[in-house]
């Protein structure tokens, strides 16, 4: 099971940061499936340090259904 398949299984309320080497097309696809950020390898830990706290604040509430929200 590759990373993209795992990503599709992750609850959309949990932020996901992609840390990955070059893969054609998949960064965009990963972001489409709700990844918070894409960090290409090799990465500098400085980015991890800055992105992680930010990602942790992105924990979204489960989507409210349009019918319930009255929109």
């Amino acid at each position: 099971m590759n990373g993209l398949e795992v990503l599709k299984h992750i609850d959309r309320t949990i932020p996901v940061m992609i840390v990955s080497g070059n893969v054609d097309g998949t960064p965009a696809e990963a972001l489409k499936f709700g990844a918070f950020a894409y960090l290409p390898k090799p990465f500098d830990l400085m980015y991890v340090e800055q992105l992680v706290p930010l990602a942790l604040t992105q924990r979204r509430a489960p989507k409210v259904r349009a019918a319930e929200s009255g929109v």
Partner: protein
Amino acid sequence: MRHGKQEPRPAPELVLAAVPVPVPAPAPAPPRNPDAKKILIVDDDPEVVEVLRRFFEKTPQHYEVQTVTSGEDAIAALLLAPPDLVLLDLNMPA
């Protein structure tokens, strides 16, 4: 005066009281911050996993790290204890 032979008293039955055997207490777990954020690292490259693990464990009061090296293990970990953040490698062998 009668010197009746004294009936030997039956030996009291040996009753073994159920004394709880002291069990050595398990080693105290390292103090955990209940507010520590659970980070799940999914990567098949042990070097990357190690670098990230070391980074998060510099501040164990803030982060609790779990690492897995395959997609299948990631799914299992996600079901068992949903993390607060996932660091995910896309390039894993299918």
